[in-house]
């Protein structure tokens, strides 16, 4: 029979799991919680409820030493109560009993606290110390603290406890009395599950007294009290079924007994299953959570990946944009340079064409010169044979003038080439224009005499300019050549200087020759121009001389202009930088 005894005992501990609906805190935990009016207390109680005993103990010790505990006995009683609870949970039953007793000795005015202290003490003697004789006095003291106002939860708790202890002490009548009191209360408050438990307890009671029929009746009542047979009361149901099995076994009704045993076992399985299900549910939950977490991680990873991708795309887009910009820039630059190159090419083409033309004219000139020289030489030889001295002289003079012309042309060509390649020595110095004109003109004296041209060098001997000596001489030579070319017998050529302004002196080569049209004049002043021979077959030259002049004047920091009237003559004006009076 002893095996059966354990069943109701297990009930005692887990008795108060469902509360009555009431305003005032009635259940022990709620009630204690309501008393905990400071953070520390609250925390201590919470830690205690969660079985964090050591931390709770520290807090309680701390609170005991605090000044408040010594001033307020209710507070002290509460702390001691909590300590007692602590010891009990720590299975230090004697220490627990001492502490609870100490708590009660504080004569607290709080009856509830005292009530629970007594209950606790009783419980310790039942389940801890197992001295059943000591239990009932505590419960009785607790019963004294009850009145009609006391909440049913406390009453039922106490009645059940008294019922249980009397059952254990084999005071069956007392036990029955208290069980029935509790049952009454439960039934009145429609607490079916608790009522069922009470029925079961009564069944146990009768079973102990070998009143098997009555026991079976109560067990059956218990099993039928459940309004719903679900997972919330499955443990109780299984135990009741087991009890029914035991009763029927005792009665010898084995068939019924087996049926109940089977039900009990099924329920046991269900419990196991339920637990399993819960576990599985838990596992499922965990799995789900993990899955969710994984999903989250995956999502995060995806996000990261996406953001990385996005960043990558952004960066590559930027790079592409930059590339595009750069390429557009270079394209534009290229277009620009292409334009420049094109225009340069055009200029080069025209220049090339000019040069080609120049070549052809120059070579033509030279060829005809040399050809004339050849035939003239032949004439010379034949005249020498016939000793026609007069004719010889004339021919030599012609030859000399031809050679002079050719030489001048070649000289200009050379100078032109040298100027283009910048190979010549070029040194700007002070010079008197008069002397340079004299030097150049010296070579033309014969020509002037021959052509009967009146020549005058009227340049002021004082006028000094800044120029490169040789290039200035080339300029003067060409301009005088030109003047001679476009003058006829008895015309005059004069060279003179004129102060243009404080910075420039003009050197003017004036002739009273053929002059030129305005078109020709403007054509000559153009940057690149060569005159063909179409206008005046005999005397219009290559234009190389004038081009050379213009380039050299420019290099000497001078200016060039032409004044001319057709039929009246031409003025070639070269402006050159002046040297100051004291220079």
């Amino acid at each position: 029979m002893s095996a059966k005894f354990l069943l109701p005992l297990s009930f005692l501990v887990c008795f108060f799991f469902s509360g009555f609906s009431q305003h005032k805190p009635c259940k022990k935990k709620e009630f204690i919680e309501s008393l905990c009016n400071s953070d520390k207390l609250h925390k201590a109680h919470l830690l205690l409820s969660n079985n964090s005993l050591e931390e709770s103990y520290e807090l309680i010790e701390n609170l005991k030493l605090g000044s408040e505990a010594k001033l307020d006995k209710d507070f002290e009683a509460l702390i001691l109560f909590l300590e007692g609870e602590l010891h009990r949970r720590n299975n230090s039953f004697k220490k627990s009993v001492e502490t609870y007793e100490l708590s009660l000795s504080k004569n607290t005015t709080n009856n509830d606290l005292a009530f629970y202290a007594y209950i606790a003490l009783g419980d310790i003697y039942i389940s801890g110390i197992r001295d059943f004789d000591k239990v009932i006095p505590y419960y009785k003291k607790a019963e004294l603290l009850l009145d009609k106002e006391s909440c049913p939860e406390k009453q039922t708790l106490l009645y059940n406890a008294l019922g249980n202890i009397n059952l254990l002490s084999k005071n069956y009548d007392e036990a029955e009395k208290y069980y029935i009191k509790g049952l009454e209360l439960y039934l009145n408050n429609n607490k079916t599950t608790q009522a069922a438990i009470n029925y079961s307890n009564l069944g146990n009671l009768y079973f102990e007294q070998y009143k098997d029929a009555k026991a079976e009746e109560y067990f059956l009542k218990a099993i039928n009290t459940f309004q719903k047979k679900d997972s919330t009361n499955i443990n109780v149901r299984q135990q009741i079924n087991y009890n029914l099995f035991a009763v029927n076994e005792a009665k010898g009704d084995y068939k019924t007994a087996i049926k109940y045993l089977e039900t009990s076992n099924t329920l046991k399985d269900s419990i196991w299953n339920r637990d399993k299900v819960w576990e599985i549910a838990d596992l499922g939950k965990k799995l789900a959570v993990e899955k969710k977490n994984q999903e989250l991680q995956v999502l995060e990873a995806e996000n990261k990946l996406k953001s990385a991708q996005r960043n990558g795309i952004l960066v590559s887009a930027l790079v592409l944009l930059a590339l595009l910009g750069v390429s557009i820039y270079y394209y534009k630059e290229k277009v620009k340079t292409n334009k420049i190159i094109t225009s340069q090419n055009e200029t080069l083409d025209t220049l090339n064409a000019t040069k080609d033309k120049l070549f052809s004219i120059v070579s033509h000139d030279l060829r005809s010169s040399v050809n004339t020289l050849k035939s003239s030489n032949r004439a010379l030889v034949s005249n020498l044979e016939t000793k026609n001295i007069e004719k010889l002289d004339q021919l030599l003079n012609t030859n000399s003038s031809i050679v002079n012309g050719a030489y001048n042309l070649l000289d200009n060509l050379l100078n032109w080439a040298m100027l283009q390649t910048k190979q010549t020595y070029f040194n700007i110095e002070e010079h008197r224009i008069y002397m340079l004109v004299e030097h150049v003109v010296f070579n033309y004296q014969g020509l002037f005499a021959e052509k009967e041209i009146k020549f005058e060098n009227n340049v002021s001997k004082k006028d000094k300019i800044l120029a490169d000596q040789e290039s200035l001489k080339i300029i003067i030579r060409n301009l005088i050549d030109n003047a001679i070319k476009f003058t006829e017998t008895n015309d005059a050529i004069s060279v003179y200087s004129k102060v243009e302004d404080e910075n420039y002196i003009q050197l003017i080569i004036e002739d009273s020759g053929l002059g030129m049209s305005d078109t020709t004049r403007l054509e000559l002043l153009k940057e690149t121009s060569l005159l063909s021979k179409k206008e005046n077959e005999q005397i219009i030259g290559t234009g190389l001389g004038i081009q050379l002049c213009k380039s050299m004047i420019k290099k000497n920091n001078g200016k060039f202009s032409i004044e001319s009237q057709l039929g009246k003559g031409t003025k070639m004006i070269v402006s050159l930088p002046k040297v100051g009076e004291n220079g």
Partner: protein
Amino acid sequence: MDNINVLVVEDTVSESDVLIASLEANNFNVVGLATNFKDAISLYHSTNPDVLIVDIFLNGFPEGINVAEAISVNPDKAKPFVFLTSSSDRQIFERAKLTRPFSYLLKPFNELELFYAIEMALEKFYKQKDVFLSDNEDTVITDNYLFIKKGKALKKVLVEDIIYIEVEDKYCNIITEKEKFVINISLIKVSKLLNPNQFFRTHRRFIVNVEKVEEIILSDNLILLSSGHKADLSDNYREIIKRVKTL
């Protein structure tokens, strides 16, 4: 007046012929013709030229520049020179230009250009710019000679031959033992350039070579000079007396 001594350094015979002919036709005294560096240096030392005409290219190398460098080394013995060249090649010119004072003549040249180049060389060498070309002056004065432009050509007069100088407006009459001639030069410049220990102002119009003084007649304010020349002595310019007395 004496002719100018010219030393020609030119390796091309046809060109040196033309050059020498041209110089001699205008009363220049060609003291020698060298065709290489070595001859040029020895002739330079033996002939005492007043000016050198040096072709830059001698036998295909710009040795003419070396000649110019050699004669310019000793400032006491240095003489003016003219570079002669047919090329206006810049690099050669840049090198030649380092031999200061620098004067050049580009082939082909005419007489005027030749004489101009010689004149420029003298002016630059003696640092008397703008003498021969200006209307006002025609004489370069050095320690030993007066270089005087006569027509197209140049003449020289030994300074120690001068007995006295008589100033007339912008002109100066130079009186030597042998001759008497006029030069265009300002009195200020003459007195500045002539050696002040040798030439003394004796009168507003007279500069006298102290070495030619034979007697000073103070009572008549007259200075008797060699070869029977006379110069006035005014009260304002009596410095010469101290000098003569110390002699």
